[in-house]
């Protein structure tokens, strides 16, 4: 309460000013738009001509080039700002080289100065007033909850009135698509239509909120913001195993994890006290940045690019604030200083990841199936071990196993797990072998315990007799040489044969070494040049007297098995140790090669954090963002949910709440919802959504009258429901649902279906392939950034390279071609036709059933007539006597009239899946 008091008073003061008389000027309402449109271009964040800027209050009233301030509070005639606006000399009149301000605008500024030139923050930087009450109910009949009271008040102001409630079945389909992203089945519609209970609708709402598909639908939205993809982008577009993050998001939505916890865990789960595996996986949110595996790239350049992107994405997702321009200079229109971008960057700059191929740091987890085997083996191993050989149990099973293996001396290191390398080192597309091992190239492994090691084995493959040799150095490239091994031919090169896996172990003894060291491998060519000398798969470290020697061969066998059970890796965010933490500098003009002053972690001044309360680390930063001291996060979040349900955000520019964004259509409603989300709902999303979908506003019909179209073409004032085209994912998922093809499994690795193009690096081995992959929900489609599924892009999906707050819905012929001709969609037409033929006996009933199944409502006579026309035309067309004719897949095996019948039904089914009403939320 207290912390808001000052602002509340301020707001009341200004509020009373703006309301009492027309002649009292409000800075935000009257003055700021003029300054933004006419002045800031030259007197803003990028340029401050005449040393005069109107971006910050302190600049606006400080001395300008002339030595005097441009605005003298209370006296317009002494204010240079005013004098310049009305100057007779065009050369001196402002704005320069542009038409003068209108008399009205000049008067506004004049009065504003005379009234004391009071400055206000932009609305978005002022916390919501916590005393908002919904306008009084003057429409008792219509209103169902407080949302409606806000909406009703606004629409009546605009001369509009609510639309009638939508038909029951229309409402049900809308609700299903909105809450779980899938349409209701025939049975679900029938059940609902029969249910006459007063709370029939609420029951559906509750059931859908509890559905396991709820999480999938909302995770799909979050994936745009998280720029989630299964590859790294740029030239190589190597695969990236990060799907556990997607599943974490699905689970979080399903469990109704409070949005503050949801956010903090993604931004700083690694810094929570003793984080769980799941909390670490959540931090993969910011490992979805692009990484460049192209040969000859500077890892630091792309590490920096990723960190800058994380800052921009964080601000866009949680603050609705565009920070990208602040990278190069102070914000031209909003009160963010150049330096402040880098102060925010300082929170993110000490993460360990460095654009390396291997994408360390990672967390490793076992699949449900493997977990059982792991637990059994581990228990069995532990039961045989002496107590002194058993490490303390941890919550990271994989880590625990690694500790045991290392302790006992069973030590395998993957070759690709290097932390740094020379330019010529790359990995092959499986990311499992060191590839492009060229003469004089090298790799570095961090902190290897070599204390007891006496031999190292390299598992390598080569196709020439003397391919090259590996030299091992300690601590630096020129450091002590401790061993060397020659790599010779392991396989015969043959066209079309992959010899990479034909590895053999090449062992070398190493000189005695004490303790833990960085280890460098340098590669040299052998008898002849080859672009790639050999492949290295892994290394094994042999200790002099490994502890496992104290046990029998059976135990060693178990250790081997334990080491070989595959684990799923997920790249995560983790801090560098304090002594290795990077310093953060301002980048002059945004160039990372042009370092300015060092900066420390800090939140932009506009948010008014006292210096002694600045967050110390990324966790504290995230906690501040999701606290009620931050005016933006809750507003930005409720606006996103609102947009998904109602078609547009209350702030239409979802990515930009700053002064250049759109003004909220219903500011009080936005603030009321934000406060309610934080306080009453304790940041829980399901109650928030429940409130939205049980409002009368939501339940209106989408039928529009000419009057409403005239008064409110875009439906800003919500006097009807918005007819919204479904998203790319919803369209495909719906096609799969109504044709009964959908495989409804929730979660798991991404899948390879017919839309997937693996590009240069192919599809990863961990992806699901084959029949079980074909008809999964679109959320699971393997997404390669360089070659994303075209049909998704055609329906306006972003390519997932950058955070996207809002999809622009288009309406194009390529969409029509996709719905008409896409292979999967046509398979669905075949399947739907089969259903139609099986379920009903007469043509009329089959066609009506097909319509009901796709649209969730009964067909009208007019539409049935048209479907019959199509059916009969098609039936005539598929004259079985005509041998030239090709038939749809399902009809081919049939004979005679049945063949014609099925073919004609397929044509009808295909048409149904193309109807406007099918791809639109009615």
């Amino acid at each position, binding site marked *: 309460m207290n912390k808001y008091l000052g602002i509340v008073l301020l707001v009341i003061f200004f509020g009373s000013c703006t309301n009492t008389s027309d002649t009292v000027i409000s800075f935000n309402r009257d003055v700021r738009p003029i300054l933004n449109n006419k002045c800031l271009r030259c007197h803003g964040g990028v340029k401050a001509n005449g040393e005069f800027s109107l971006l910050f209050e302190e600049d606006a009233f400080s001395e300008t080039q002339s030595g005097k301030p441009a605005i003298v509070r209370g006296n317009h005639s002494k204010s240079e700002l005013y004098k310049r606006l009305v100057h007779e000399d065009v050369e001196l009149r402002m704005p320069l080289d542009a038409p003068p301000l209108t008399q009205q605008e000049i008067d506004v500024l004049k009065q504003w100065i005379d009234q004391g030139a009071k400055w206000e923050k932009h609305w978005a930087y002022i916390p919501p007033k916590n005393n908002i009450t919904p306008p009084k109910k003057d429409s008792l009949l219509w209103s169902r909850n407080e949302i409606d009271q806000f909406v009703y008040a606004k629409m009546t102001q605009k001369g509009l009135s609510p639309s009638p409630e939508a038909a029951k079945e229309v409402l049900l389909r809308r609700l299903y698509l909105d809450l779980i992203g899938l349409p209701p089945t025939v049975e679900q519609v029938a059940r609902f239509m029969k249910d006459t209970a007063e709370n029939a609708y609420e029951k559906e709402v509750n059931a859908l909120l509890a559905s396991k598909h709820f999480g999938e639908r909302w995770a799909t939205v979050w994936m745009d913001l998280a720029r989630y993809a299964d590859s790294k*982008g*740029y*030239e*190589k577009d190597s695969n990236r195993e990060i799907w556990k993050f997607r599943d974490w998001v699905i689970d979080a939505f399903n469990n109704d994890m409070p949005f503050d916890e949801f956010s903090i865990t993604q931004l700083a789960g690694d810094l929570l006290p003793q984080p769980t595996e799941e909390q670490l996986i959540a931090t993969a949110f910011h490992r979805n940045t692009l990484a460049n595996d*192209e040969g*000859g790239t500077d890892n630091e350049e792309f590490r920096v690019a990723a960190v800058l*992107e994380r800052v921009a994405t964080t601000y866009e997702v949680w603050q609705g604030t*565009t920070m990208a*321009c602040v990278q190069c200079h102070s914000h031209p*229109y909003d009160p963010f200083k150049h330096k402040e971008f880098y102060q925010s960057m300082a929170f993110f700059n000490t993460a360990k990841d460095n654009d390396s191929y291997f994408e360390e740091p990672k967390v490793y987890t076992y699949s449900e199936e493997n977990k059982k085997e792991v637990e059994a083996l581990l228990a069995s191993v532990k039961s045989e071990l002496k107590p002194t050989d058993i490490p303390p149990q941890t919550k990271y099973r994989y880590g625990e196993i690694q500790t045991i293996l290392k302790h006992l001396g069973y030590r395998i290191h993957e070759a690709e797990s290097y932390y740094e390398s020379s330019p010529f080192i790359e990995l092959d597309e499986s990311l499992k072998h060191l590839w492009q091992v060229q003469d004089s190239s090298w790799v570095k492994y961090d902190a290897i315990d070599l204390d007891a090691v006496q031999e190292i084995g390299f598992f390598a493959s080569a196709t020439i007799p003397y391919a090259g040799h590996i030299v091992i150095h300690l601590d630096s490239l020129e450091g002590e040489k401790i061993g060397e091994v020659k790599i010779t031919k392991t396989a015969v090169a043959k066209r079309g044969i992959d010899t990479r896996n034909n590895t053999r172990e090449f062992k070398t003894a190493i000189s005695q070494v004490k303790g833990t060291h960085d280890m460098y491998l340098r590669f040299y*060519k052998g008898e002849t040049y080859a*672009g790639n000398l050999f492949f290295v798969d892994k290394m094994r470290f042999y200790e002099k007297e490994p502890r496992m020697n104290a046990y029998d061969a059976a135990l060693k066998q178990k250790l081997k098995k334990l080491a070989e059970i595959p684990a799923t890796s997920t790249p995560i965010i983790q801090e560098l140790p304090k002594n290795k933490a990077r310093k953060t500098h301002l980048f002059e003009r945004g160039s990372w090669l042009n370092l300015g002053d060092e900066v420390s972690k800090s939140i932009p001044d506009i948010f008014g954090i006292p210096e002694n309360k600045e967050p110390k680390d990324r966790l504290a930063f995230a906690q501040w963002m999701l606290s009620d001291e931050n005016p933006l996060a809750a507003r930005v979040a409720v606006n996103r949910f609102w947009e998904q349900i109602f078609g547009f955000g209350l702030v239409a520019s979802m*990515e930009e709440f700053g002064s*250049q964004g759109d003004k909220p259509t219903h500011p009080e409603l936005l603030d009321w919802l934000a406060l309610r989300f934080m306080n009453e709902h304790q940041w829980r999303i399901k109650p928030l959504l429940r409130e939205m979908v049980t409002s009368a506003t939501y339940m209106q019909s*989408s*039928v*529009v009258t000419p009057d409403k*179209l005239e008064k409110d*073409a*875009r439906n800003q004032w919500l006097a009807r429901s918005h*007819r919204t*085209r479904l998203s790319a994912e919803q369209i495909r998922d719906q096609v799969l649902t109504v044709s009964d093809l959908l495989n409804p499994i929730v979660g798991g690795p991404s899948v390879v279906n017919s839309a997937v193009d693996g*590009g240069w690096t192919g599809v990863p081995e961990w992806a699901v392939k084959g029949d079980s992959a074909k008809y999964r929900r679109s959320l699971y489609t393997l997404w390669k*950034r*360089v070659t994303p599924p075209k049909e998704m*892009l*055609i329906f306006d999906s972003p390519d997932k*390279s*950058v955070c996207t707050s809002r999809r*622009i*819905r*288009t*309406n*194009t*012929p*390529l*969409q*029509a*071609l*996709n719905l*008409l*001709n896409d292979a999967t969609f*046509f398979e669905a037409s075949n399947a739907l036709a089969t259903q139609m033929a099986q379920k009903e006996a007469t043509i009329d009933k089959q066609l009506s059933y097909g319509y009901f199944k796709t649209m969730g409502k009964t067909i*009208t006579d007019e*539409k049935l007539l048209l*479907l019959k026309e*199509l059916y009969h035309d*098609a039936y005539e*067309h598929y004259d079985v006597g005509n041998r030239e*004719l*090709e038939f*749809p*897949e399902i009809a081919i095996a049939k004979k005679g009239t049945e063949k014609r019948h099925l*073919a004609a039904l397929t*044509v009808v089914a*295909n*048409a149904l899946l*193309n109807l*406007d*009403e099918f791809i639109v939320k009615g």
Partner: protein
Amino acid sequence: MDILNEAHFRQAEYNTRRHFLKKCISGMGALTLGSVLGGGNLLANTMQPKRSYSKIPHFAPRAKHVIYLHMAGAPSQLELFDYKPELQKMDGQACPPSLLEGKRFAFIRGVPQMLGPQVNFKQYGESRSWVSDNLPHFTKVVDEVAFLKAVQTDEFNHAPAQFLMQTGSARTGRPSLGGWVTYGLGSPNKDLPGFVVLLSSGGPTGGKRLWGSGFLPTVHQGVQCQATGTPVQNLTNPKGIDSEMRKKSVEIINKINEQEYQEVKDPEILTRISQYELAFKMQTSVPEVMNIEKEPDYIKEMYGVTPGKNSFANNCLLARRLVENGVRFVQLYDKGWDMHGTGPGNGVGDGLKNKCKQIDQPMSALLLDLKQRGMLEDTLVIWGGEFGRTPMMEARTGENFLGRDHHNEAFTMWMAGGGVKPGFTYGETDEIGYSAINGKVHVHDIQATILNQLGLDHERLTYRFQGRDFRLTDVHGNVIKDILT
């Protein structure tokens, strides 16, 4: 189209225009009928409350169409156009330290050797332009071309440099050049995509994002077409549906959609109806345009087409056909120009020579063919890679293959037609082709110039996104006036 349909279309058009006039936000329901596939005009995109629509084009255009030939991988200017006899004299010598101090290279480490030109040069045409023996056909068209010898870019890795060249930013997420153009101008032929992309020798490493629409509505994505198989994805009917059946089903779909419109009065449905009609038309119009078989033999021979392949030669001929049929922007990518000399066939000697054989005849034929049809006047042709190559040898292996590293400080591009001075050379590099010494142009200048020739002011062609007016050239770019007629 019957009267009812027409009335609907008029209504839709009216509604859309009014949407626009009310400055409503973004593309939903706001696409004019002609706006499909980026083929429409500015009314299609109503996100621009601040822009003056009536002023597009900003001034009289010199070109109506663009054909952009991007050599992905970055060809060596030192073996094609930028003749450096002095470099020959330094061949094999250690690179002077002054060239290396403070520089970053993709692969060069330590002190590399200098590498002389691997091919002979002569002067051709009235313009006396230098061309290497690698491009014998091209020697005949040098008088049509304006060479830019001192192009500079900020990037020296392929994907970022390609992004910079094609989208104005080295990072992803921006609309491509072709998308900006159709956004600004639409396209004359409403039955074809406004922005077409053709690939040969595989795709560019930057991937589809190079022709993505970024934050512009997706209608401004480049449509990837090909000379073989299905010209556009999903253009052909599925098995069991022939064009007669398709015609009937589209007719019924549209009639039912009309019914739906009667019920709910959503103007967006009318747009959908027109898109289905257009989709059906495209099923015949696109394959027709994409069928180079119809060309007379002498034309095929002139380009050196390779039937049944996605070759650069086929794509050059397709580019002409597409432009002839009113496509606004045709973007070709030819991959395989990254000559590091890491093995035989990958060097600036024979490797480059062989690669040049794939493009020399077709690109020369394209210019001649455009000219003989009177199309070169209003078609701007651009040729170039994403950066150039170093005058130093890339000493990756110390073996005998001759390669050059990526170089972003000076490389050659050329433009022809569309109001560009024919037979002209602009810009100059130092005596070894390392640094630009005069007539430097940056990637953003090239982009500004391309837009300029189309009648678009690169500073005024903006799109509001994230609260800011974005441009192709960001805050940079100057039109290269010296090369314009």
